[in-house]
């Protein structure tokens, strides 16, 4: 078979795939997908797990290590059958969060952390690059096989072939993977093309298998006999390695970026996953069925030293089955291309979303984001695809195309397995934190690179001395024997230490660190993904008591309205209105909607959850509640402020009103008193003047009437004088004539002035002439007025049979103190506070001689003189104390 024919058929095949993808994309654009979204296509697309490594390498693996190859198939099978609920959760989360890649999953779960996105992207690229190199290598090897079968023909060197293949794949991927931009990055066309390739590789492998079994070995019994006879029969199971590879393959099926792409990102409904949970393992079984026969026959028929990885091709070729070999080649080509295409798309999405775009946004931090983002993203993806393939090519060239396919694949698997703790922890453990994920991933990645990845280059990167004796001669740090674990297989060793370190760092840092708010929100959304989609929740028939629901509703909506709502619901359920409605999902949903109108959606949801027995009030619920509460609080704070202002205004008004009322009452009382004080003498005057006017009266009556009229007139005049005096004193506009006076003089004058008051009474004065020798600067007349008042009162009201008035003067601290006390019965305690009030009189006293303004005037005078006057209780009689400054301060 000519090399050119091979290239031509490859091109034709690629064009065919291109056409398939194109047609599907067009149907997709018209919304007519139909069976293209069927679970079958989804399951077939998952077959990109089976790459060229599986297609070619499994036979080589089987030829070298016997049944160990089966682990590569068994791992995913176990995951799909035994742990399909993990996949289901991942798919649900992926759909709900609109995840675009595994980097997106991890970054999104840990608070949309960009650093995690970058780390995951970098790890994925580093880990997957050998894998892509592996695909290139297998295609190149396949070309080599055909080329060597047709010697003498002009053909490019192996290195050039690799470049052409890489370039072609990059072109195809770019053309289809980056045609459009969708939020959820689904690529229906490519998925369908991959499904076609899945069929091609399965058919090719089974065809080769059938040819081997029935064409070469002579049937099933023949091949069984050959297997028994072969060296494979002696294969011994190595439990450590077996378990490790089983684990790796299982982890890879969810951690590989391309697997995440087809399982989660490209998933469009639940049926797809349900079907895949058994159909995908079945596909894997079919793929693995003929591995051992081909390996056994290859070992038997092919010359010693031929590459067992190529038995699938070389066996048909050696047997002259050119057509079958061509089919096998296309099968291998399919495996390689499908894997590279999807892997490149997945990685390109990660690179553009987590590295290029954030960097670009950071660089141009100002300015609005315009239309060119779209083209930027597309360009970023195209460049990323080229970069990924270039890296693969670079690794292929650097590693020299050496090494068995399977070993390179396992290095990749171990690399992406580092995502496992952060991923599984992220969807099952609320306590997992960003710090934990970062530290775990970094630790695992570094250990993986040191123990497995870097040594895979031989001594190209790590010096031979490090590989042999450890860095700086530290034996316990040797890459393949950390801490002296020399006995382990290098793969198991690397996997063990990297995952131990990864998980330990992840858990420890998660426990020790505290998640941020977005992280907590996301952890709830991820871990409790099944508890409630973001939209209106469908209530299961819970254990809600209708009575409890009614009580809660009444508390929120008011009794009448709640009753009406429940009655209507009962009627709708065909029950009597006096009964309570059943808590059906429909009723609960309607109730939540009603309550949401009153108290906010989140609160309503939380309250019904509580009653329905779904106690899972998520962080998200609480945050929404908090947000609503914050709004309410802000609102009520404003109300509170307004209310406070109103209250202050009202208080001020009330105080003003009270003041006015008090003033009004005072004014009324004062006017009433004045009226009384004026009318009383007027009454007497009028009555007696009328009597006098009659004439013809006895002389005594005339004289008496005239005397009363004169007395009352005097009384009136005095009242008016007092009122005027008081008014002047109260206004504070009193003119004081201050002079130097002797206290003794003042008291002498006062006593003299009061002699006319009850002159019939013989009153004894007690004085201290020496103490009275005080000179002071004050208004002599005003102060005399005060003393006259006090002494006159004592004269009038002292009821002692031997009335005595004591006047005591004392100077202290620049003030002079004068006590005027009598030995009468004094003023009852209850009335003592009243004595200085206007118009106050001792009850029961005849009022002929005063209007009750005397003490009020005294207080005003003393205040004007800068002093105080008080009633002095407990002196055995009525006693007043006047305290004055020795000199009045000017002003």
């Amino acid at each position, binding site marked *: 078979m000519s090399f050119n024919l091979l290239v031509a058929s490859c091109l034709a095949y690629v064009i065919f795939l291109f056409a398939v993808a194109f047609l599907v994309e067009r149907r997709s654009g018209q919304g007519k997908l139909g069976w293209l979204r069927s679970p079958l296509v989804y399951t077939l697309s998952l077959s990109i797990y089976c790459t060229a490594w599986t297609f070619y390498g499994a036979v080589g693996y089987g030829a070298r290590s016997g049944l160990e190859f089966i682990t590569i198939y068994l791992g995913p099978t176990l995951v799909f059958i035994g742990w399909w609920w993990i996949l289901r959760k991942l798919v649900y989360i992926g759909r709900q969060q609109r995840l675009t890649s595994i980097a997106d999953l991890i970054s999104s779960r840990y608070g949309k952390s960009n650093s995690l996105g970058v780390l995951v992207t970098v790890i994925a690229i580093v880990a997957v690059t050998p894998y892509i190199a592996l695909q290139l290598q297998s295609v190149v090897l396949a070309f080599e096989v055909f080329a060597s079968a047709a010697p003498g023909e002009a053909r490019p060197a192996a290195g050039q072939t690799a470049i052409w293949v890489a370039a072609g794949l990059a072109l195809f991927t770019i053309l289809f993977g980056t045609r459009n931009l969708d939020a959820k990055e689904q690529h229906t066309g490519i998925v369908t093309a991959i499904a076609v390739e899945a069929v091609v590789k399965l058919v090719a492998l089974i065809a080769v298998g059938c040819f081997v079994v029935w064409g070469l070995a002579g049937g099933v019994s023949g091949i069984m006999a050959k297997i028994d006879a072969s060296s494979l029969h002696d294969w011994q199971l190595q439990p450590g390695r077996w378990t490790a590879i089983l684990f790796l393959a299982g982890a890879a099926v969810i951690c590989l970026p391309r697997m995440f792409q087809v399982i989660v990102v490209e998933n469009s409904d639940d049926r797809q996953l349900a079907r895949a949970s058994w159909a995908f393992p079945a596909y894997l079984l079919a793929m693995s069925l003929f591995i051992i026969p081909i390996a056994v026959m290859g070992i038997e028929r092919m010359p010693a030293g031929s590459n067992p990885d190529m038995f699938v091709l070389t066996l048909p070729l050696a047997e002259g089955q050119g057509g079958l070999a061509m089919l096998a080649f296309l099968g291998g080509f399919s495996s390689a291309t499908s894997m590279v295409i999807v892997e490149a798309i997945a990685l390109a999405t990660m690179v553009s979303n987590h590295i290029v775009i954030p960097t670009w946004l950071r660089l141009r931090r100002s300015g609005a984001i315009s239309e060119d983002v779209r083209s930027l993203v597309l360009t970023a993806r195209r460049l990323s695809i080229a970069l990924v393939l270039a890296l693969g090519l670079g690794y292929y060239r650097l590693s020299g195309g050496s090494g068995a396919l399977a070993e390179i694949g396992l290095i990749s698997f171990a690399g992406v397995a580092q995502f496992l703790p952060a991923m599984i922890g992220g969807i099952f453990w609320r306590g997992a934190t960003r710090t934990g994920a970062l530290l775990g991933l970094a630790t695992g990645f570094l250990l993986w690179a040191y123990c497995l990845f870097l040594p895979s280059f031989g001594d190209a990167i790590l010096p031979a001395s490090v590989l042999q004796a450890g860095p700086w001669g530290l034996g316990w740090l040797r890459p393949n024997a950390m801490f002296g674990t020399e006995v382990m297989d290098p793969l198991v060793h690397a996997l063990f230490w990297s995952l131990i370190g990864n998980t330990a760092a992840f858990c420890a840092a998660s426990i020790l660190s505290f998640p941020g708010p977005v992280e907590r929100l996301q952890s709830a959304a991820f871990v409790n993904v099944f508890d409630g989609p973001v939209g209106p929740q469908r209530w299961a028939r819970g254990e809600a008591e209708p009575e409890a629901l009614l009580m809660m509703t009444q508390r929120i909506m008011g009794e009448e309205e709640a009753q009406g709502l429940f009655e209507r619901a009962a009627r709708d359920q065909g029950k009597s209105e006096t009964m309570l409605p059943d808590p059906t999902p429909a009723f609960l949903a309607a109730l939540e909607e009603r309550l949401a109108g009153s108290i906010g959606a989140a609160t309503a949801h939380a309250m019904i959850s509580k009653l329905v027995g779904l106690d899972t009030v998520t962080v998200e619920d609480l945050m929404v509640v908090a947000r609503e509460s914050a709004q309410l609080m802000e609102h009520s704070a404003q109300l509170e402020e307004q209310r406070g202002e109103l209250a202050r205004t009202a208080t001020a008004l009330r105080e003003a009103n009270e003041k006015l009322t008090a003033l009004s009452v005072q004014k*009324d009382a004062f*006017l*009433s008193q004045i*009226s*009384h*004080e*004026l*009318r*009383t*003498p*007027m*009454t*007497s*005057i*009028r*009555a*007696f003047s*009328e*009597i006098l006017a*009659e004439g*013809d009266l*006895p002389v005594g*009556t005339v004289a008496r009437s005239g005397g*009363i009229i004169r*007395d*009352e007139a005097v009384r009136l005049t005095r009242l008016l004088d007092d009122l005027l005096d008081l008014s002047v004193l109260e206004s504070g506009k009193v003119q004081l004539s201050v002079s130097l006076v002797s206290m003794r003089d003042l008291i002498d004058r006062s006593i003299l002035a009061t002699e006319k008051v009850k002159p019939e009474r013989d009153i004894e004065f007690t004085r201290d002439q020496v103490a009275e020798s005080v000179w002071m600067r004050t208004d002599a007349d005003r102060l005399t007025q005060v003393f006259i008042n006090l002494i006159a009162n004592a004269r009038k009201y002292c009821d002692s049979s031997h009335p005595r008035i004591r006047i005591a003067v004392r100077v202290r601290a620049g003030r002079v103190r004068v006590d005027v006390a009598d030995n009468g019965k004094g003023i009852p305690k209850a009335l003592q506070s009243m004595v200085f009030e206007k118009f106050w*009189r001792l*009850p*029961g*006293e*005849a*009022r*002929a001689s005063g209007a009750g303004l005397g003490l009020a005037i005294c207080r005003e005078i003393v205040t004007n003189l800068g002093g105080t006057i008080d009633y002095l209780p407990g002196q055995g009689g009525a006693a007043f104390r006047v305290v004055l400054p020795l000199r009045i301060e000017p002003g």
Partner: protein
Amino acid sequence: MENSRKVLLVEDEPNIAEAIQFILSRAGWEVIHHAEGRDAAQIARRLQPGLVILDHMLPGLSGIEVLTALRADPVTADVPVLMLTAKGLPRDREAAERAGATRFMTKPFSNAEIVAEVRSLTGAGDIAGRAGAESGNVTP
């Protein structure tokens, strides 16, 4: 007959009391004067006068309080009460009427006014048989 001629005057202002006593005695009434609110109701009960002239502002017990006590006692419940006040406020008149005052006079008043009021309240003419007290020439 005797009772209708008997007037209890409760007034603390001595000159006013003297004036009223003078005027009413001259017109034929027997005026018993009491100067304070305390005991006024008991005195009224004992004397059973045809009329009580009651000052509004009294030391000890106010006129209103005395009036209330009078009305509460079955013996004096129906006795006419002429209330005198020197306070010119309508509020005081209302309080007096509420408490059961029969008439209400504001000081100062003319002698003829008080005689006419007393005559109408006791339902009796004066001894001299003349209308009014203006021309009364009875010796005190």
